[in-house]
């Protein structure tokens, strides 16, 4: 019953997004949309997915869109781009999909084909073969480990793509200039900087808890990486980008992203060397179950490193671009006022 309420709320928000012109409100609605879909996933017993959707859908994507809006402005032109043909295409695909749903197994029915073919083995045998309670992590990290490897490479590609587009040769600000920015920001955001100082260690702690708790409850490499990166982003927002860059320098973060992917790949190569197939953890140590635990721990660690460092790289490049634009604007104002 609750999922129908949540779904209709989602439809209301989606329609509001169509009608809204102010981009800032639209981005806020996207954040709420992400959070509501995360709570829908909890209602659907998909706890791992809810965790990731909340951290990524509601958190990082809203944050990135807000940074972009500060650079590109809030107003959206109201002219619609040939709406009738768009409506026709949409109605066509919608009708086709509704036609497709007529033969689908009913929602929640236990005798649907997907519950009878591959997943019974995951549910029944995963305890003996892999030995960790969270079946999603065991399928994610062991049965279909290569999918997750592809996914880590997707995140790595996005990080490199954003780097190529937005990286700016940084003008080396000297130290006292950084301190002056730091002090000016200090008295403006006094309260939230104190609270952030209290919170950031707990956020790191929670990220590590989620990283290593992935086997027993919802959690894993992705969620931990995103939470870890959000703590660093909070620090960068409040203490100024240049101080954050001094604390976490760029090349180090890129190296960690590359090492995460290599760690994941080398777990596969080691199992190749030991005679098993690629990413076959049974051969990693004498007892297969211990091998599975070791393999899953290592690749979750690789995933966590890559996701955290790529999210940090993406945010630093967006914020760096914004600082670059403001710097250029000041230079233009100075020379326009001068001549």
């Amino acid at each position, binding site marked *: 019953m609750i999922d129908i309420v949540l779904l209709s709320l989602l439809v209301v928000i989606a329609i509001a997004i169509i009608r809204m012109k102010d981009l800032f409100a639209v981005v806020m609605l996207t954040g709420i949309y992400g959070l509501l879909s995360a709570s829908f996933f909890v209602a659907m017993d998909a706890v791992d997915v809810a965790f990731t959707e909340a951290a990524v859908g509601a958190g990082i994507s809203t944050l990135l869109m807000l940074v972009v809006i500060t650079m590109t402005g809030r107003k959206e032109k109201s002219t619609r781009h040939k709406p009738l043909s768009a409506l026709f295409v949409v109605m066509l695909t919608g009708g086709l999909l509704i036609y*497709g749903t007529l033969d689908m197994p009913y929602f929640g029915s236990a005798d649907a084909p997907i519950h009878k073919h*591959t997943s019974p083995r995951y549910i029944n045998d995963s305890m003996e073969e892999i030995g960790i309670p969270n079946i999603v992590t065991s399928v994610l990290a062991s049965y279909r480990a290569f999918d997750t490897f592809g996914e880590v490479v997707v995140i790595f590609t996005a990080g490199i793509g954003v780097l190529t587009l937005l990286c700016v040769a940084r003008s080396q600000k000297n130290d006292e200039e950084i301190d002056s920015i730091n002090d000016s920001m200090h008295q403006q955001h006094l309260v939230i900087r104190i609270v952030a100082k209290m919170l950031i260690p707990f956020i790191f702690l929670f990220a590590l808890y989620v990283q290593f708790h992935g086997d027993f409850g919802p959690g894993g490499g992705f969620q931990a990486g995103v939470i870890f990166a959000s703590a660093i982003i909070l620090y960068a927002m409040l203490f100024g980008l240049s101080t954050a860059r001094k604390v976490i320098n760029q090349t180090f973060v890129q190296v960690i992203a590359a090492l995460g992917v290599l760690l994941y790949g080398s777990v596969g190569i080691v199992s190749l060397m030991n005679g098993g197939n690629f*990413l076959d953890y049974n051969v990693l140590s004498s007892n297969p179950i211990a091998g599975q635990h070791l393999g899953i721990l290592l690749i979750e660690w690789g995933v966590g490193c890559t996701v955290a460092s790529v999210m940090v790289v993406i945010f630093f490049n967006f914020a760096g671009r914004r600082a670059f634009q403001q710097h250029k604007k000041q230079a233009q104002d100075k020379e326009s006022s001068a001549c």
Partner: protein
Amino acid sequence: MIAHLPILQVIIPLLAAPICLLLNRSKLVWLFSLLASGLAFSISILLLQQVMTSGVISYELGGWQAPWGIEYRIDNLNAFLLLIISGISTVVLFAAQTSIEKEIPKDKHVYFYVLYLLSLTGMLGIVATGDAFNVFVFLEISSLSAYALIAMGNKRQALWASYQYLIMGTIGATFILIGIGLMYQMTGTLNMEDLSQRLPEVAQTRTVFVSFVFVIVGVCLKLAMFPLHLWLPNAYAYAPSIVTAFFAATATKVAVYLLIRFTFSVFGLSFSFTTIPLQTLFMALGLFGIFVASTTAIYQSNVKHLFAYSSIAQIGYMIVGFSLSTVTGLTATLLHMFNHALMKGAIFLALAAVVYRVGNVELKNFRGLGRQMPLTMAAIVIGGLSLIGVPLTVGFVSKWYLLTALVEQGWWPIAVLILLGSMLAVVYVWRVIEVAYFKEPLEQNVEVKEAPMSFLIPIWTLVIANIYFGIDTRLSVQVAEAAAQSLFGVSP
């Protein structure tokens, strides 16, 4: 180590990318990625021999059996595609260092090579895998690195072209995801082999029909088939010329492979060609694509746009061969994939050499290049002749098989239309040749010299391959025929 070849094919370029990021010196990274691509090429040759001798190779990742774990199935079709992709990428990489010297700022060279290796990994991953969802993941890897590579072009239109490609590509990939989801819902498995066994019993349901439509529309978006091709010309014209050379020769072939794999191996021949009039629909769209794209190619002032539209026309030929749904028709399509990769690779590498020397590829800058850059222009001429399908070149072989397939079916008018299409190709190739050989060079282009050796070696290897496979067709035809027969379930 021989047993692990299928996975090493994808893993070597994949692990080479982060290592390149760690090396961080442009010259060293170039040599390392050349080594990785060469290694992938040699593995694909070994794989092809293994498949030709001992039939299908199946490799279970993580040691789990097929429907539960992910499985790599290499048969003639995959091995043929792997050979094309890794071969073209090795040859193109050879000229990369000098070409990006002029087109990409110095500090981004390392990122260029990392993205290049990632898009190579994505394409190899799509072709080698036997798991439906794994296709989607590696499709995203190759598409994301393609968007970033295209956006590295020095003109501002490159950004807009890359954005449009991102929107169209993501809609296509999400359509494929919906199709896979519907298939999974009705059968409960994601392995392609398992799907082909379990789909017939649910084939009559509307959900499987809709999933087939969504997968085909998604793949056609990626394929830039005629009505959905709007993103391709700008993306290929404004991207750095090395990127255009690589994608023009490989990206669309991977999408054609997906189309063939889903219609023949997963949904089965009988289902695909009876539920929808796929034959007439694709035949009409293919022919329409050939004519519209060739005519627009004639009116282009930018030579890269010209050959991008000609690529869309060539895809039209492949779609016509595919829509015949006969063994020879499919052989013609597979042959044309191989030949088109050689032709377009040579032409776009030659254009990269022209961009390196002259700066841009507007038609007016091509005046008098015939005398100033003789070897490069000769390569473009031979590539153009091969596009038209002149005997002794590779284009002739694929046109010949296409015409025999059409004649077998007794469709004379369509065979005549195909020949008319080639006539249009004569027009736009002649436009380039005429400007290059019979016009005086502009005053600012007088002191243009021949392209450096690092361009001429890859260009001329492709041109010689163009001619060699035009004459000695044993390798390409034998592999294409074996692949077509295995798809039709006819034991060779």
